[in-house]
């Protein structure tokens, strides 16, 4: 069976060689294929092929009750899965129209900003590794482990977190979690400054990344860019500010914006966003309101055990939630969240049954990767690799 697109065999008179940047390649941080037509080292044309880990998320979501879809959303952008979980929970809450208490909103903001830092750590350190600076990765990855520990305290998992519930958080943060968050807030800035000093003004890094893989603001908007990649091109569109969710309007943070949309701008936008996320977490921790941790939503939120043994309704609710039999009101809703690398949207259509009728994910990585050939044309092969890692295209989200 023909596995590859028709690779143009080398045509002599134009002296182009064809290079296959194939599915298993050390430089492509994921599983996609690019057939590059190259004139020496300069890339003339690129034909991308994706779908190598297409695991049919949307079909799977039509066969699972609502609380079981959260583990699927973990595996979309697995570098920052709590953001995907929260986005999904908020979409369902918008559909059933329930109000989340302020405290749960603030806890969600803390978790989302922590996972945004984790995502940017992966992206920035991988840009540095791709341009040759390996030590930054080893040092900064240590802090991703610290974030993993915080997530472990909250929900027991490191990477695919399945954090929170529809209707709020499942439990209060433990004392250990608060201590770890405070330690993180104190010590991480020092490590980030160290990485900043190591890489940001490094002559080799600057020469390698300044205007590699540039994209103008108009082309970025035409290609549907959002998130750090669009802000690097100069457009300050951020879902948290444009239509705030989970009480983001209470926080003061500014949006870093780049100028000419090249790899250095994408790197710098992510670095500044890490500082912004830190300040958001500090604001959230300092004026954390007290109150219930989840909304009063019996048909979605597992009742406490002592209630289940004492009252009849709680037992029925418990049974229905666990068996996934809770019926969802008919309707459709589109809710989008500022994910690790762009606007992650959930278009949920429900026909009242126990599973969604149709769930469409707006996946930023799928949308970025379409512009990849246009960004790397004219650049060298090494720049193409750097552009790929600076766009932070995550294979799970690309081939959902």
């Amino acid at each position, binding site marked *: 069976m023909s*596995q*590859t697109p028709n*690779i143009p*065999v*080398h045509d*002599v008179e134009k*002296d182009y*060689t*064809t290079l*296959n*940047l*194939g*599915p*298993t*390649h050390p430089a492509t941080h994921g599983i996609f*294929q690019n057939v590059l037509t190259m*004139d*020496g*080292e*300069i890339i003339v044309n690129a034909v991308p092929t994706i779908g190598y880990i297409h695991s049919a998320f949307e079909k799977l979501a039509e066969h699972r009750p609502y609380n079981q879809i959260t583990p699927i959303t973990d595996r979309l952008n697995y570098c920052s899965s709590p953001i995907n979980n929260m986005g999904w929970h908020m979409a369902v809450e918008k559909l059933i129209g329930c109000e989340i208490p302020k405290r749960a909103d603030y806890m969600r903001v803390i978790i989302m900003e922590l996972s945004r830092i984790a995502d940017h750590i992966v992206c920035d350190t991988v840009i540095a590794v791709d341009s040759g600076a390996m030590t930054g990765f080893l040092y900064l990855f240590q802090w991703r482990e610290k974030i993993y520990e915080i997530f472990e305290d909250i929900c027991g998992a490191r990477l695919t977190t399945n954090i929170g519930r529809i209707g709020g958080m499942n439990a209060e943060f433990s004392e250990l979690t608060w201590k770890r968050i405070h330690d993180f807030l104190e010590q991480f800035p020092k490590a980030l400054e160290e990485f900043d000093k190591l890489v940001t003004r490094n002559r080799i890094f600057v020469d390698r990344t300044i205007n590699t893989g540039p994209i103008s603001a108009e082309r970025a908007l035409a290609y549907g860019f959002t998130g750090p990649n669009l802000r690097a091109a100069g457009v300050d569109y951020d879902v948290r500010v444009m239509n705030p969710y989970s009480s983001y309007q209470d926080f003061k943070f500014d949006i870093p914006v780049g100028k000419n949309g090249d790899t250095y701008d994408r790197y710098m936008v992510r670095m500044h966003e890490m500082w912004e996320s830190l300040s958001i977490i500090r604001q959230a921790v300092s004026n954390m309101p007290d109150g219930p941790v989840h909304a009063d939503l019996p048909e979605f939120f597992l009742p406490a055990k002592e209630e289940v043994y004492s009252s009849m309704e709680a037992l029925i609710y418990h049974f229905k939630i666990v068996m996934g039999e809770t019926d969802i009101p008919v309707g459709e809703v589109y809710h989008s969240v500022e994910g690790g690398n762009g606007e992650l949207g959930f278009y949920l259509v429900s026909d009242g049954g126990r599973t969604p009728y149709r769930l469409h994910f707006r996946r930023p990585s799928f949308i970025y990767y379409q512009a990849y050939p246009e960004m790397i044309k004219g650049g*060298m092969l090494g720049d193409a690799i750097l552009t790929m890692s600076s766009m932070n295209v995550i294979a799970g989200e690309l081939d959902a």
Partner: protein
Amino acid sequence: METNSNLWEYLPIVILALVAAGFVVTTMVLTHLVGPKRSNEIKNDAFECGIEAQGNARTPFSIKYFLVAILFVLFDVEVIFMYPWAVNFKELGAFGLWEMFAFMGLMIVGLVYIIRKGALNWEK
């Protein structure tokens, strides 16, 4: 007698060479004999990132690669000439110094020519 006496001084070097060559030969022969071998046409195919290789790799490629490689070899050989100079730097004294400066001066002229011609930057 004294001719072969200073020959004896080179004995350690000969032994070192034999041991090094011996180690290389024995390991290669040993792994050839002991190691399992399995060859089939898929294994002998070129590794093309996981897909079947198409076309052959012996296609003409851009001259720029060759240019960069040759320039490197050129300046590398220049450095090799500096080793004997560095070893008996004292005996050669000022004469050696100026001699090397002349040699290096010629190479610098060559380098400036290359840079002005733009042979190193790839985009041109």
